[in-house]
């Protein structure tokens, strides 16, 4: 039977059926992290540091433990010593050791018979602190004399003589910068900053953990990756991974922020100390903002040179990023992708990962890429404006294509940047007339995507319907996408496929839904597992017909004889084979496990029109267009949803969202009233165009699309504000007060 070969015609792929989980979600039946209750359950609460940086002198839980209903208190003393590397970082972040490293850092946790008792008990735990000098700004944290957050945290990459808060250093590039800049007719160098922004998922972190004294337990949790929760929790608690079975709930958003742990190990530690009673923990929004991971903040210097006819001759960038009190700011990605859109001969990037007294950063949709894009695409826009060049034509002139050597080294395979630029140029939005105080901005962006450890199973039911089991939580409609791919592979109706998100006990290891990998990797695994299954279905038909399995092909949900000597038999439908499987060899299922290569990045181009109120500095988005390469859109409506979601989060990051710290190092805006995310009334409909340049590394051509969409908005909107106001603002967010100050500034 022949199954391989590029697929070009589809029956189900590209259609837009309702999502299988839709009814549960719109009727409230779907169960999220906080929607579980079990008999005998306790409730957890966390004591958090009010100081940005402080030595913990003493923790006295006597009063709390004496309260009726309080069953357990844990501190760092309840966790094992001896961890190192990222395991130590995770443990230290989940529960402070000798020092509290940021406002909101957990220092103790309590379990009680009700949420109210738990909260009251947390207040009754007395912690003596010795406040220490703190620093929250990335440039200040690198400066001479800055408070040292953790001496000895720097790794091998940091050159001698740097401040101890610089913990990783990156440098990459090629060519001769001076030569390249000498060839330019215009060189512009500017400095930029972006503030930390939170993923802003609707559903706060929530879990129900149970663990006995034997180290065995279970967890129900909202997460993007339950195998990560298992591995991280086991490491932090000093238990074996397989002792913990983790079941993912439905997930109300994550965007990278739910690929790590915060309260999960605490619930297990409390449960273990409370005699194995299950402990439920649910974060408040304030806790989410203070103590989970936003993205990094950045300070950047970018220099680019261009000829009069629009050829980029050289580019360099220095990127300083703080990711909180632990190593891990995504400056590695920032340096790699900063100029990744373009074919540049002379290029150089330097990056610094810097500690500051802020929460440990977590991944946030294309982590590290939007900041770099803000700086580099703003400078390119300024070059175009100064030379009177069209921003799309200039990007087309320099765009990376198949065979272009990427600024980070290897040559690109088939990619779709040119196609997105051409589609943006042809779109009506690019030609709409603009009025007074209005401006148009263009920017492109890129995300590399990821494969990752992946395991999937497919099983045939007795009636011939199909069950698909995958290990990536359904964060954006992936049940529908997997069902479509399985339907296509089997040639059965979409409605005849059910997709389950398996727990950690039911499949091999799966990485989280991150790196825009779910549709690519779990999709590939679903197709390959289906093909494994089809091979077995064909064998059952061949045995019944008394012919070789090689003489049977699979088409439209049926086994069929194929070839001159196969004989004449009517097609055997999947339901007929399934009905007899108990008597023809037993259950029929297929499996696939791999760490698949073959993923390919996705480029996007955004065009945005804004109007800036000259009296208030408020920016209104008038029109917004996202054009992005999906490779092949499995479910086009959900692909468009990813495009729109990325754009909206980018709009928020550009215009309003920021972590505001006071002089005391405490977060000033730990709530959605003060941390301003865009709501529907702030936005126009986000227009979308799906470009399809198939990825040869996927059976159906899929590229991940989840992350690229947040990369272009920051510079695209800043470029539009530049046109509307005549002012280049290099610090985000573009809050009204900042824009108004720029308008009133007499300078350029």
């Amino acid at each position: 039977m022949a199954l391989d070969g590029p697929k070009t015609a589809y029956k189900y792929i590209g259609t837009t059926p309702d999502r299988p989980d839709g009814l549960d979600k719109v009727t409230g039946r779907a169960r999220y992290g906080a929607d579980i209750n079990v008999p005998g359950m306790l409730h957890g609460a966390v004591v958090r540091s009010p100081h940005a940086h402080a030595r913990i002198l003493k923790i006295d839980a006597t009063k709390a433990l004496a309260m009726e209903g309080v069953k357990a208190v844990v501190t760092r003393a309840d966790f094992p010593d001896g961890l190192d590397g990222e395991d130590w970082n995770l443990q230290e972040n989940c529960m402070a050791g000798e020092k509290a490293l940021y406002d909101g850092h957990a220092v103790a946790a309590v379990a009680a018979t009700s949420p109210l008792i738990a909260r009251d008990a947390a207040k009754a735990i007395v912690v003596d602190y010795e406040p220490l000098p703190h620093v929250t700004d990335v440039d200040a944290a690198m400066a001479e004399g800055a408070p040292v957050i953790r001496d000895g945290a720097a790794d091998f990459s940091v050159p001698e003589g740097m401040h101890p808060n610089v913990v990783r250093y990156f440098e990459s590039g090629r060519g001769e910068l001076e030569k390249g800049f000498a060839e330019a007719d215009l060189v512009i160098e500017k400095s930029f900053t972006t503030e930390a922004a939170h993923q802003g998922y609707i559903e706060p972190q929530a879990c129900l953990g149970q663990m006995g004294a034997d180290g065995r337990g279970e967890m129900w949790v909202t997460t993007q990756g339950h195998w990560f929760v298992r591995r991280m929790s086991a490491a932090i608690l000093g238990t074996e991974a397989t002792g913990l079975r983790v079941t993912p709930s439905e997930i109300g958003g994550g965007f990278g922020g739910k690929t790590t742990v915060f309260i999960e190990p605490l619930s297990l530690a409390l449960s273990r100390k409370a005699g194995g009673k299950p402990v439920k923990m649910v974060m408040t929004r304030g806790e989410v903002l203070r103590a989970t991971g936003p993205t990094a903040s950045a300070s950047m210097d970018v220099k680019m040179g261009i000829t009069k006819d629009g050829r980029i001759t050289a580019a360099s960038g220095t990127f300083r990023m703080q990711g909180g009190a632990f190593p891990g700011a995504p400056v590695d990605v920032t340096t790699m992708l900063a100029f990744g859109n373009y074919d540049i001969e002379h290029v150089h990037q330097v990056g610094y990962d810097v500690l500051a007294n802020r929460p440990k950063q977590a991944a946030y949709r294309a982590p590290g890429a939007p900041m770099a894009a803000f700086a580099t695409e703003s400078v390119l826009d300024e070059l175009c404006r100064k030379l009177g060049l069209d921003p799309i034509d200039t990007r087309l002139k320099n765009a990376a294509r198949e065979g272009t050597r990427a600024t980070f080294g290897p040559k690109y395979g088939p990619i779709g940047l040119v196609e997105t630029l051409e589609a943006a140029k042809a779109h009506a939005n690019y030609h709409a007339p603009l009025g007074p105080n209005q401006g148009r901005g263009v920017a492109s962006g890129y995300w590399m995507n990821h494969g990752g450890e992946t395991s999937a199973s497919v099983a045939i039911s007795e009636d011939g319907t199909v069950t698909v089991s995958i290990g990536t939580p359904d964060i954006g409609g992936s049940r529908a996408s997997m069902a479509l791919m399985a339907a296509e592979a089997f040639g059965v109706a979409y409605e005849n496929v059910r997709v389950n998100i398996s727990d950690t006990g039911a499949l091999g290891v799966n990485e989280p839904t991150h790196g825009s990998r779910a549709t690519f990797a779990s999709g590939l695994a679903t197709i390959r597992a289906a093909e494994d299954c089809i091979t077995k279905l064909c064998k059952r038909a061949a045995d019944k017909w008394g012919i070789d399995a090689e003489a049977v092909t699979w088409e439209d949900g049926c086994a069929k004889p194929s070839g001159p000597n196969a004989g004449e038999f009517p097609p055997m439908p999947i339901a007929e084979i399934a009905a007899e499987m108990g008597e023809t060899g037993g259950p029929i299922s297929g499996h696939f496990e791999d760490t698949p290569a073959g993923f390919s990045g996705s480029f996007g181009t955004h065009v945005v029109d804004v109007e800036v109120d000259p009296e208030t500095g408020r920016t209104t988005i008038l029109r917004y267009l996202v054009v992005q390469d999906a490779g092949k859109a499995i479910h086009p409506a959900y692909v468009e949803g990813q495009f729109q979601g990325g754009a909206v989060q980018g709009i928020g990051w550009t215009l309003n969202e920021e972590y505001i710290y006071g002089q005391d190092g405490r977060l000033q805006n730990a709530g959605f009233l003060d941390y301003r995310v865009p709501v529907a009334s702030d936005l126009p409909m986000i227009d979308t165009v799906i470009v399809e340049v198939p990825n040869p590394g996927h059976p159906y051509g899929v590229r991940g699309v989840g992350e690229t969409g947040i990369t272009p908005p920051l510079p695209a909107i800043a470029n539009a504000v530049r046109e509307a106001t005549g002012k280049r603002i290099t610090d985000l967010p573009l809050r009204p007060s900042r824009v108004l100050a720029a308008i009133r500034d007499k300078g350029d």
Partner: protein
Amino acid sequence: MAEVHLWSGLRSLADGQEVVEVEGQTVGQVLDGLVAAHPGLEPAIKRGVSVAVDGQVVPGNRTHPVAPDSEVFLLQKLAGG
């Protein structure tokens, strides 16, 4: 011998070389060969790198084949959100 390209931050750990020739038929063998030739690279490789073989990024897959004329780039380890 496959040609392995190092990002510039790694070159000081490999006697200043930008390109190192290494024997190996898989990504794992190439990485092991790199460390054997330049032990200073061990911390960087141990921390985790992605490897691009002939333009294809293969993070974490030590069994991915490498041909004698393959172009190999070491890249920072990536995942995403």
